[in-house]
C-alpha cells in the first residue's frame, strides 16, 4: 500500500518519456499532459524527436523524447526531469544527462536491457547504471513481460501486444503522480475509437501499469502536485503550431478577409498546414502547393485577389521564398510568412530548435526590402502573434515574417480560449470612396500605406508588379529620383508600424542595473532565470522582444535605463548585433547557445553571473 512517508508535495514536477521513435512516447506524453491540464495544472511540453522516422530499433539515433513540466508558475518544460521513463537501454543512455541527480527517479523497462540491447546502445560494460554513473533511484520494471502477461488472453499477436508497452508506463506514471485513470482511459477511447480490440487491450494494460505501481511502490517517491486556481474560463491544451493556425483564423474573422494558406510540407512547420487543411470547416483554403516557391507565390496571388494570405515554412523554405517576399514588398501586398525555425544552415537539424533565421528574416532579400518581423514568446503566444502578424500585414500592406521555432511550435501549454471580442477589429486599408475615380494604385494614406483594391470591384481595375513604379501615377518608372523616393517611402511605411504596436513591457525589480533581453521562444527560460536571480539576491530586469521590426517605440528608453544589457539567444548573436546597430550607446553583452536545444534556466543563470563577475 501507499507509503505516506514517500509522498512528496511539490508545486512543479518534470517528467520525461523516452524510447524508440516507434514506441509511442509522444502519444503517452500528450495524454499525460492533457490529463494533468485537465485537473488544473499548468503544463509546458517539449517533444524532442529524431529526424529519422524509424532509426534502427534500440539505437541511440532512434531515441524519441517528450518532456512535460506540470504544476504552478510553469513557463518552461524544465531543465532536468524529476522522473525519466526509459523504454530501453539506448533511451536511458541518451537521456541520463537530462535526469535530476541526485533526487530523480528513472523508470526503465528492464526487459530491454539484455546484452544485445546494451550492445545496440553502445554500452561498453554489462552494468549500464554504473557505467552511466546514475545517482538516482532506478525502478527496474519488467514492462515487456508484464504487458504481455496482462494481454495473455487478449488474442493479440506479439507485435500488437508490444505496442501497448507505452500505455503500461502511462498507467504507472499516472499512479506515481496521482492522476485520475478515467481521464487517461477517455483519451485512449477516443484515440482507438475505430479499433475496439486495441482499445480494450490498452485499457487493460493501463490498469495493469497503475496497479503495478500501487503494489510495488515501496521504494519510490510519489508526487502530489499542488495547483493554484487559474483564471476562470474554458481551457484547452494547445501547441504553438496549432495556436499559430488558430490565430490566423481569428485574424480572418476580425478582418473580414477569407484566409488562404499556400504551403509545402517541411519540419517543424507542417502542423500549421495540416491544421489549416482541416479548417475547411471554417472556410479556410489551405493548399499544398508543388514547392516552397509556389507556396509563397500562390499566397501572393491570393493576397492580390483580396484574401488574408499566408505561407508557412521553416528556414530552408524561407530561403526559397525570398524572391517572392520581395515581390510582395514591391507590390505592397499584405502577406504573412511563418518561419518555424530549426537548426541550420542547409538541412541542418530539422527537428531541433534554433533562432538562427533572424538575419534572414530581416535582410535576406535582394534590394532595399524591409519587412515587418515579429516573434511569439510561447506556444500560446503563437495565437496572439499570428493574429498580430496578420493585423500588421493587412493594416500596413506589407509582408510580415513571424519567427516561431521548433521549441514553441511543438511545445504545448494550457490555454484559455479567448472570446472574439478580446481581439481588436482589423481594418483593411481599402480605397476610400472619395478617391474612387481619381485613385492610382500607389496612392497612400498618412502612414504611407498603399490602398487595397479588391479585384472584382468595378472602377478599380489596376496593374501592379515587381518593376519600380512612379510615386504618383503608379506607372513603370526608371527615374533615379523616383526610385530613391520609393525606397524611402517603403522604409518609412515599415517604421511607422511602431505607432500601431504595443509598447515593450519589462519586468523591472528594484535595484536592478542589468537587464536580460531575449526574443521569441526563449521567453519561458529567460523569464524564469531572471525571476530566480532576483529572488536569489541579484536583481535582474527582464524584457522579451516580440515585435522585432520595427521595435516598440520605447525600446531604447527601457534598455537605456540599464548599465548592462545582456542579450541571450539561440544563435551566435544576431539580435545583439541588431540592437547594437540600432542603439550604439548601449553596452550589450551576449549569452549564446547553438546546440539545437532550448536554454536551460540554470545555464542562463550561470552565464549571467559570469558576465556580472567580469
Amino acid at each position, binding site marked *: 500500500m501507499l507509503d505516506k512517508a514517500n509522498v512528496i508535495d511539490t508545486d512543479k514536477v518534470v517528467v520525461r518519456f523516452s524510447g524508440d521513435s516507434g514506441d509511442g512516447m509522444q502519444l503517452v506524453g500528450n495524454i499525460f499532459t492533457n490529463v494533468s491540464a485537465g485537473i488544473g495544472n499548468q503544463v509546458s511540453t517539449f517533444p524532442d524527436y529524431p529526424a529519422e522516422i524509424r532509426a534502427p530499433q534500440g539505437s541511440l539515433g532512434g531515441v524519441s523524447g517528450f518532456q512535460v513540466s506540470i504544476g504552478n508558475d510553469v513557463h518552461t518544460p524544465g531543465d532536468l526531469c524529476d522522473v525519466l521513463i526509459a523504454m530501453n537501454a539506448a533511451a536511458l543512455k541518451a537521456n541520463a544527462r537530462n535526469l535530476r541527480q541526485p533526487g530523480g527517479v528513472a523508470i526503465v523497462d528492464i526487459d530491454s536491457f539484455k546484452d544485445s540491447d546494451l550492445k545496440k546502445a553502445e554500452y561498453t560494460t554489462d552494468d549500464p547504471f554504473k557505467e552511466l554513473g546514475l545517482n538516482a533511484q532506478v525502478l527496474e520494471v519488467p514492462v515487456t513481460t508484464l504487458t504481455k502477461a496482462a494481454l495473455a488472453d487478449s488474442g493479440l499477436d506479439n507485435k500488437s501486444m508490444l505496442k501497448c508497452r507505452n500505455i503500461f508506463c502511462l498507467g504507472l506514471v499516472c499512479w506515481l503522480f496521482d492522476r485520475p485513470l478515467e481521464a487517461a482511459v477517455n483519451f485512449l477511447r477516443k484515440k482507438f475509437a475505430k479499433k475496439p480490440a486495441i482499445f480494450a487491450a490498452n485499457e487493460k494494460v493501463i490498469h495493469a501499469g497503475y496497479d503495478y505501481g500501487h503494489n510495488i511502490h515501496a521504494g519510490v517517491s510519489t508526487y502530489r502536485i499542488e495547483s493554484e486556481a487559474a483564471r*476562470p474560463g474554458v481551457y484547452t491544451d494547445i501547441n504553438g503550431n496549432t495556436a499559430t493556425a488558430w490565430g490566423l483564423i481569428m485574424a480572418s474573422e476580425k478582418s473580414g478577409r477569407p484566409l488562404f494558406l499556400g504551403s509545402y510540407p517541411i519540419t517543424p512547420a507542417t502542423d500549421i498546414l495540416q491544421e489549416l487543411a482541416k479548417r475547411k470547416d471554417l472556410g479556410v483554403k489551405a493548399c499544398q502547393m508543388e514547392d516552397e516557391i509556389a507556396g509563397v507565390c500562390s499566397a501572393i*496571388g491570393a493576397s492580390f*485577389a483580396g484574401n488574408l494570405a499566408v505561407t508557412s515554412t521553416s528556414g530552408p523554405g524561407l530561403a526559397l521564398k525570398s524572391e517572392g517576399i520581395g515581390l510582395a514588398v514591391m507590390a505592397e501586398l499584405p502577406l504573412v510568412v511563418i518561419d518555424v525555425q530549426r537548426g541550420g544552415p542547409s538541412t541542418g537539424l530539422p527537428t531541433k530548435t534554433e533562432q538562427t533565421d533572424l538575419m534572414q528574416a530581416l535582410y535576406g532579400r535582394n534590394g532595399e526590402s524591409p519587412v515587418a518581423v515579429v516573434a511569439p514568446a510561447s506556444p500560446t503566444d503563437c495565437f496572439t502573434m499570428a493574429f498580430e502578424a496578420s493585423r500588421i500585414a493587412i493594416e500596413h500592406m506589407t509582408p510580415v515574417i513571424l519567427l516561431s521555432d521548433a521549441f514553441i511550435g511543438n511545445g504545448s501549454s494550457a490555454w484559455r*480560449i479567448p472570446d*472574439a471580442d478580446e481581439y481588436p477589429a482589423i481594418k483593411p486599408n481599402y480605397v476610400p470612396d472619395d478617391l474612387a475615380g481619381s485613385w492610382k494604385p500607389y496612392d497612400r494614406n498618412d502612414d504611407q500605406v498603399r490602398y487595397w483594391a479588391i*479585384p*472584382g470591384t468595378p472602377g478599380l481595375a489596376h496593374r501592379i508588379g515587381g518593376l519600380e513604379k512612379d510615386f504618383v501615377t503608379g506607372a513603370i518608372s526608371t527615374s533615379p529620383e523616383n526610385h530613391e523616393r520609393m525606397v524611402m517611402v517603403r522604409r518609412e511605411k515599415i517604421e511607422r508600424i511602431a505607432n500601431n504596436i504595443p509598447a515593450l513591457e519589462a519586468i523591472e525589480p528594484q535595484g536592478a542595473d542589468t537587464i536580460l533581453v531575449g526574443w521569441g521562444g526563449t521567453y519561458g527560460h529567460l523569464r524564469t532565470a531572471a525571476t530566480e536571480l532576483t529572488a536569489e539576491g541579484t536583481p535582474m530586469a527582464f524584457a522579451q522582444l516580440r515585435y522585432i521590426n520595427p521595435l516598440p517605440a520605447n525600446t531604447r528608453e527601457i534598455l537605456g535605463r540599464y548599465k548592462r544589457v545582456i542579450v541571450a539567444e539561440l544563435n551566435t548573436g544576431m539580435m545583439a548585433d541588431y540592437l547594437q546597430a540600432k542603439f550604439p550607446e548601449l553596452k550589450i553583452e551576449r549569452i549564446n547557445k547553438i546546440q539545437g536545444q532550448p536554454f536551460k534556466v540554470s545555464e542562463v543563470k550561470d552565464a549571467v553571473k559570469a558576465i556580472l563577475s567580469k
Partner: protein
Amino acid sequence: MEENITTQYTPADFKNGSPVRWCPGCGDHAILNSLHKAMAAVGVAPHNTAVISGIGCSSRLPYYMGTYGFHTIHGRSAAIATGFKLANPEMTVWQVSGDGDGLAIGGNHFIHAVRRNVDINMLLLNNKIYGLTKGQYSPTSDRGFVSKTSPYGTTEDPFIPAELAFGARGTFFARAIDVELQVSQEVLAAAARHKGASVVEILQNCMIYNNGIHNFITDRETRPDRTIHLVHGEKMIFGKDKNRGIVQDGFGLKAVTIGVDGWTIDDVLVHDAHTPSNFLHQQLAMMDGHELPLAIGVIRDVEAPVYNEDVDRQVEEVKAAHGFDSLRSMILAGETWEVK
C-alpha cells in the same frame, strides 16, 4: 455573374491607353490585339478579369490591359494565378508566359497548374528564344540552335509544349500562330470558355533575336500546305486547294491527297477535341509541318473535375457537416476543461 453575360464589351474596354513598348513588328502586338478581341467576344467584364504574367517580353502584357493585372516574377505566374483563382473564383484569370518563363524557370509550376486543372487560361507565347536578355536559347529552341549561350549550337532537345501539357494530363490544348489573327481569337475565346487549365501555345516571332524562326510554318505562300486548322466535328482538310486530308495509318497519322491512290473524303478523320483519350490529340499536336501539317486550333478540349471548384465544393460540404459558426465554436467542440 449575370451582368457579364448580358453586357456587351468592345476590345477598347480591355485596353488601358498605355503606350505599348514591344519592338515594332514583334508578334506580341498581334497577340495582344487578338486577346482584346477575344475578351470582348467572351464578354466577361474587365473588372472581373485578371491578367497575371511572369518575366520576359510577353510578360509585359498586363500593362496593356484595362483589367486587373499583375506583372510578377520570373517563372512563378502559374503559381500566383493558381492562388488568385482559388482566393477569388469569380474572376476570369489569364496567365501569360513565354517559353523561358513558362517552361524553364517556371516548368514546375506549369505542369502542376495543368495537372491540378485549375480554371485559368495559360498563354504560352513561344518565340524559341530569350528576348529580354538579348538572345539566349530557350527550352523550346531546336537541337543545334546557335545563340549567344550556344555559340556552337545546342546539344539538347527542346520541349514540345503540347507533349508537356499532355504529360501533365492537360484537359485543354490549343495552338495558334501570331500572324493568324482569326485562329488566335478563336482559340483564346475557346480557352476562356473551357473550365480548367487551358493551355494556348502561340508561335510568335521575335524580330530582333530570332527573326523568321517560324517562317517554315508561317510563310504566306506555303502556310496552307504546312498547317492545318483543326475544328471540332470537321474533317481534317488542309492545303492550298483544300484537297489534302489527315487519315489514320496504323498507329500513326498520314497526310494524303484526296483522289490520289484511292483516298476519298470518307477516309479523312473528323476532329474530335472532346474525346477523353489524348492519344490522337497528341499525335495531332506532334505534327510539325514537315511530313504532316502543323496543327492549329483547339486540339483538345475535354471536361474534367476543376481544382478550384472542387476546393469550393469541399469547403461548403465540410462547413455544412461540422456546423461551426466561428473559431471559438470549433475549439469548444474539442477537448476542453473549465476553470471556475
